[in-house]
C-alpha cells in the first residue's frame, strides 16, 4: 500500500508549507515527519514526498542520501548515537563505544536481534563541555560514566 501521512501529520505539513515561499523548502521537515511515522525513509515515502511537493523523485532521493539522519532501512526501536569526535574522545568516548558494543553484543551500525536498539557513532553533537556523551532518540545524556551507560542500556533493552 502506498505511504500516507496520518491526519494530524497532514495538518502539520499544511502548517509547515505556510512557512516558506517554495514547496520544496518543506522537503526536509516533511521527510522528518514521514520518518517519525514510518521509522525509515522507504521508496514509498520518497515517492509520496515527491508527489506531495511537486519535485522530481530523483531530487528527493538525492536529498535523502545526503543527510546522515535519514534511515534508508528499518532501525531499532531506540537509536543510540555515541559521539566519537576528538573532544569526546579525549574524555573516553572510545571506551563508551566499546562498552556499548560489548553490552549490546553488536557493532556500531548494527541493531540488536530483538530490534530494540540501533547503535551508531556520531560526529560532534555540540556537547563537548559535557563529554563524553550520547544521544538516545531525542535526548542527550552527558558526562557519561560506565555505570550511567550500563543503567541506560539496561533500561532501553527492557523497554
Amino acid at each position, binding site marked *: 500500500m502506498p505511504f500516507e501521512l496520518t491526519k494530524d501529520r497532514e495538518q502539520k505539513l499544511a502548517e509547515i508549507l505556510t512557512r516558506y515561499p*517554495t514547496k520544496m523548502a518543506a522537503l526536509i521537515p516533511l521527510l522528518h515527519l514521514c520518518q517519525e511515522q514510518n521509522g525509515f525513509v522507504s521508496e514509498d515515502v520518497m515517492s509520496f514526498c515527491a508527489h506531495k511537493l511537486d519535485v522530481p523523485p530523483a531530487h528527493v532521493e538525492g536529498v535523502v542520501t545526503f543527510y*546522515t539522519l535519514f534511515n534508508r532501512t528499518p532501525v531499532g526501536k531506540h537509536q543510540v548515537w555515541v559521539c566519537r569526535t576528538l573532544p569526546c574522545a*579525549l574524555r573516553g568516548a572510545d571506551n563508551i563505544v566499546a562498552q556499548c558494543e560489548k553490552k549490546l553484543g553488536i557493532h556500531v551500525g548494527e541493531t540488536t536481534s530483538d530490534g530494540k536498539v540501533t547503535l551508531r557513532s556520531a560526529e560532534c553533537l555540540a556537547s563537548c563541555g559535557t563529554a563524553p556523551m550520547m544521544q538516545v532518540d531525542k535526548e542527550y545524556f552527558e558526562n557519561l560514566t560506565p555505570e550511567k551507560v550500563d543503567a541506560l542500556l539496561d533500561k532501553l533493552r527492557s523497554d
Partner: protein
Amino acid sequence: MLKRTDYLTKVYGKKSGWTLDVYERECDGYKTAQKVLTSMTRDQVVDEAKKANIRGRGGAGFPMGVKWSFMPKQTTKPCYLVINADEGEPGTHKDRTLMEENPHSVIEGCIIGCYGIGAHVAYIYVRDELHLSKERLWGAIEEAKKKGYLGKTPFGKDWAVDVVVHTGAGAYICGEETSLLNSLEGRRGEPRLKPPFPAQAGAFGMPSTVNNLETIAAVPTAFKMGCDEFSKLSALHDIKDGGVRLYGINGHIKKPCVVELACGPTLNELINDIGGGVLGDKKCLCVIPGGSSTPILLPEETVNAPDEKDPMHKWHGMSVFDVPLGVDTMRNVGTMLGTCCVTVMAEGTCPVLAMKNLMQFYKHESCGQCTPCREGSAWLFNTVDKILDGNATMADVDNLHDIANGIMGNTICAFGEGTAMPALGFVKKFRKHFEAYVTGAKKHSEATLLVETAESGATEPAKVE
C-alpha cells in the same frame, strides 16, 4: 585580561530562565527591540550596528554591521535573515546553551536584525539533533507572538516580522552559509560558488544575511547599552573586535564549561582561571583554539614581531598563550580564533591519534562536491592511519603536506582549508611524533587520547557557568 560579564548568560540556570517572564524581568526583554523599531530608521540601525564591532561568532569573524550594510537599500524583492545554529564544529558547544537557556535574546536579536537589513522573515537553521534547543526556540516564538512582539505590527510598527525554526538532518557542511541556504531550500547541502554572495542572491535566490546565532543574540545587548559602549567592553576594542562573547573550554581540563567574558582573555587565563587547570595537573601539550578547523597552538610557541609597527609587537617574545584571543591576534599567530571554544590536550596525548580522529571527522563530513576535498580528506585519514600502524615511510609524512596543500584553495567552500590547515598544524608542530611511528620508536597500541585520571569519564561534572 579576564573580565566576566553576564549580559547573555544572566538567566542561565535560573528557574524557567528561558521563558518570556524571566527575560522581561531580568533583562528588560524586548524593550530594546521596541526602542529600535519605533525610534530608529533602518540606516541608523545598520550604522549603529557597525559601531558594536561584533565579529561574526561562527568562526570566520566577519564584522556583523558591515555584513548588514551589504543588503540592498531599495529592493522590490523579499529579503531574508538567516540564523546559523547548525553548531557542529568539533569542540564547539556555546550556541546550544543560548538556545536552551536564553532563546528570547535570539528572537529579540532577530527582530532588530530583520528591521536593519530589510527582512520580514528570519529563518533559524538548527541542526536536527538539538531537540531541546528547537523546542525552546519555538516556545519563545509562541510567547513573543502572543505578546505582539512578532507578527504583522510588532510594537505597533508597520514592519512585519516572523521567525521560523528550520531543521537540518545531520550534515556538518550545512554550517557553511551557502550550503545552509541550499539545505533551507530543500536541497542537498552542497556549498554554492560565490559570487553571488548571499546579500545579492541568498535564500530562495533573494537578498539574505546569514548570521551566527550568538552574533544575533548579542544584538539586543549592544543596542541597549549603545553599540560603541558595548564594543568598549572588549580588551580589543582598538582593533575593532568588540563586546562580550561566550567562551567554551573542553578536553583535558578540570572544569569544562561555557562562560561569558569580555573579548580578549588569554589562553592561559581560560585554562587556569576558568578551566581550573589541566586535568591531572599535567602540562598542556597543545590546544585547538576555536573548533577543530583552527590549527593547534603549543604553549612553547612565542610571538615573533620585532618590528615596532607590527600590531603584534606589544606581545613580542611572549607565549602565544598570553596573547588576548581575538580574530586578528589569532590570525597573526598563525591560527584562527574560530568559535572561541578551546579544546585542551594534556601531555601524554598522542597528537597523531588526535589528528587521525579529526581526519575521520572531515572524511565523513566532506560533502563530496569538490574532488580535492572529497579525495584529499580520505587520503589524509588513510595516510595517518598507515603511519600509526607502522606501515609508512618518511615519504608518507611528507606526503601529508602535499595532500593538504593540494586541497587548500582548490575547493568551492572553506571546508577544504578547514581540513588542510589543522592537518598541516599537526604535521608541522609534531613531526617528530609522526616520524617515531615510521621508525618504530612508537607503537599504535601504546598511543592514547586519555589522561590517567580520566579513564572513561569526566572527573568533575561539567556545568554552564
